[in-house]
């Protein structure tokens, strides 16, 4: 990799929720680290690039708790490279990729392969959430210790839930030795057999098989109880129901340490969209009814939901072209998550930009045990520059992701990524940086 540039970001509003910073200042990135806030001219290196961030936000780069990259084995959907480019275009400087590959990542070699390919792709820092069970079969623990040694930073059977309670309990206990989190997608599979849509009035009228909210509520309740029993580290997500939110709010008040996240598609459109029978609205968790959306929005705003994850589940066009039952769940979301959060929460007055960055960067870093997610001096120079007021229309034709299926096609959003800087290097920009000639 080339020597990271020195970058001086000027005139921007610096937001760092980790220490409450929210003011206009200059930020100097030097040798891949955050070097100085408001440096005096004498402290500047002789050669650097200048970024004019007037009217923009300068924040720690976004961190995604759940991205599917599909490589190896499902490269028709996405590759580590295309997914990585999509991530940096969406403002992400670190992503946690899930083991939903073929074969699933359940060996140290698998972890190493993904990390090695990602390192050469010019995308974000790419971390691996390895399988919790061998072959993701939900029965026998994978070699969690060896996977951890190879660099896995957590374990999950995503997109499957860890249905076997004994397995989850064992894994939570076992992982305390490595202080690594388990990520569970909370669904009781017995209650969702063949379901394709939120089990509500719309699915009833359209004759679509339902995914009932209680399938999620029950799984969240079980997960919480097992965290309490084991004191293990568990992240539940993505969640989507009023019931999950109510339960989490109560147990967090009791001091139970469990974290939760939501996907952007559950912050906006309701199941009414299914009347088109368009498979781009077939996402997981499913589009819910408006009262669930309202509950989830409120929970993101008040912190009951700790993080927003992209839930990026890319699927090839030919797969999404099939009929609604056969088409796979999934959507391309990396490039639109920030804009959806800004539009649905910040610009509506439900939360501040600082809280939005908290949900998208600072807290995800804490959940994943990463040192990034802040702009403290000496931390990695992972920065996103956002124009909070740019209004644009989501068009999947311009996506870096191979997958162009999105429930947000044509939606008008406000807030756009201008620069994504990873380790002091500009990995994505819509504007050229200016050279400073000494």
């Amino acid at each position, binding site marked *: 990799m080339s020597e990271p540039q020195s970058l001086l970001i000027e005139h921007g509003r610096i937001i760092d929720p980790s220490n409450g910073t929210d003011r206009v200042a200059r930020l100097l990135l030097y040798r891949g680290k955050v070097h100085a806030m408001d440096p005096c001219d004498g402290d500047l290196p002789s050669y650097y690039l200048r970024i004019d961030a007037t009217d923009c936000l300068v924040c720690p780069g976004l961190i995604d708790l759940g991205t599917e990259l599909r490589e190896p084995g499902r490269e028709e959907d996405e590759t580590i490279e295309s997914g990585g480019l999509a991530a940096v275009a969406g403002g992400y400087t670190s992503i946690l990729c899930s083991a939903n590959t073929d074969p699933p990542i359940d060996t140290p070699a698998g972890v190493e392969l993904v990390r090695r390919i990602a390192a050469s792709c010019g995308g974000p820092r790419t971390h691996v959430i390895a399988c919790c069970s061998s072959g993701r079969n939900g029965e026998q623990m994978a070699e969690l210790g060896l996977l951890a040694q190879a660099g896995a930073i957590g374990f999950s059977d995503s997109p499957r839930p860890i249905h076997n309670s004994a397995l989850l309990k064992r894994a939570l206990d076992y992982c305390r030795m490595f202080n690594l989190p388990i990520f569970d997608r909370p669904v009781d599979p017995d209650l969702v057999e063949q379901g394709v849509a939120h089990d509500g009035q719309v699915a009833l009228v*359209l004759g*679509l098989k339902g995914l009932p909210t209680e399938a999620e509520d029950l799984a969240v309740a079980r997960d919480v109880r097992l965290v309490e029993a084991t004191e293990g580290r568990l992240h539940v997500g993505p969640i989507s129901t009023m019931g999950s939110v109510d339960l989490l709010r109560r147990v967090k008040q009791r001091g139970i340490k469990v974290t939760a996240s939501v996907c952007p598609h559950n912050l906006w459109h309701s199941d009414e969209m299914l009347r088109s029978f368009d498979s781009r609205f077939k996402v997981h968790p499913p589009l819910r009814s408006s009262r669930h959306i309202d509950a989830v929005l409120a929970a993101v705003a008040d912190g009951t939901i700790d993080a927003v994850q992209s839930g990026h589940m890319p699927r090839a066009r030919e797969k999404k072209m099939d009929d*609604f039952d056969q088409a796979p769940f999934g959507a391309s979301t990396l490039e639109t998550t920030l804009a959806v959060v800004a539009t649905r929460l910040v610009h509506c007055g439900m939360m501040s930009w600082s809280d939005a960055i908290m949900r998208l960067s600072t807290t995800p870093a804490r959940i994943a045990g990463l040192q990034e997610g802040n702009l403290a001096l000496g931390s990695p120079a992972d920065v996103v520059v956002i124009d909070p007021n740019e209004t644009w229309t989501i068009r999947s034709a311009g996506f870096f992701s191979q997958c162009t299926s999105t429930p947000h096609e044509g939606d008008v959003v406000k807030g756009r990524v201008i620069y994504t800087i990873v380790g002091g290097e500009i990995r994505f920009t819509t504007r050229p940086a200016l050279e400073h000639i000494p």
Partner: protein
Amino acid sequence: MEFPKTWTRKHLLDLESLSADEINVLLDTAESLKRMTEGCRRKISLLAGKTLANLFFENSTRTRNSFSLAAKRLGADTVEFSSSGSSVSKGETFVDTAKTIQAMGVDWVVTRHQTPGTPHLLARELHCSVLNAGDGAHEHPTQGLLDILTIREHRGVLDGLTVALVGDIAHSRTARSNMWGLRKLGAHVIVCGPATLVSPRWQELGFEVAHDLDEILPRCDVLNLLRIQFERQKARPFPSVHEYAARYAMNGKRMRRCPANILIMAPGPINRGVEITPEVADGPHSVILEQVTNGIAVRMASLWLLAGANEELR
């Protein structure tokens, strides 16, 4: 025959989106064509030179033959395609299959598929007219129309009638098409069956939900007895067929609780002894075979109206 100015639709996908006026146009046209073909028996050449393609991804005998006969009675040609199970297993999406058939120069694609919404997807992709012959548990609009036509022939108007749909509402496209069509024409609709097959949410949508058949019988003008769709049920939603029949089978004893002029309908195929006993199915109140004839009438009407809208054949 003059083309009705109020008809502008190119596809027939569901009854939920049709207005009462449009449903009446379909029914009036069906009655006219039934007369012109002397009870759907004689051939006329209203649609000569046109071609209908049956594209069925699910088994069917009566609906498929009914569409074919309707086309032939009006002088059109028919072509048959079938595919069991998922088209993906053959490496082709159903949209590609439909486009291939369209390229052979057909005017209507009649489609049946196990997944709700497939006719709607085809309608977006194809230039020709698409008719829904059943999409999963969603709708079966011509079945709804033929049921409503049969009631109208006997009672003159739908407005003010009470019609009970009995049985497996959850999995029934026939139920949904009947519910929307009947309600738009002013009938009171009761959906009746075990609580596991009749969602309370139908009440939020303005339909009466009942679980006790004996209680509602005295209030009904029409009973439409739906087949239990064993093939669509993963886990049986009631303890046994024996128990179901005891609570919901229409038999001679239950007939005595009904008004004297009750109409007994069934979309078929019927499970004799489950939803209906032979004495009722073959009894004087049964109009089951008239429904079959009217099926050809409403399908002739649908083909003629869609072709007219498509080519402004007025």
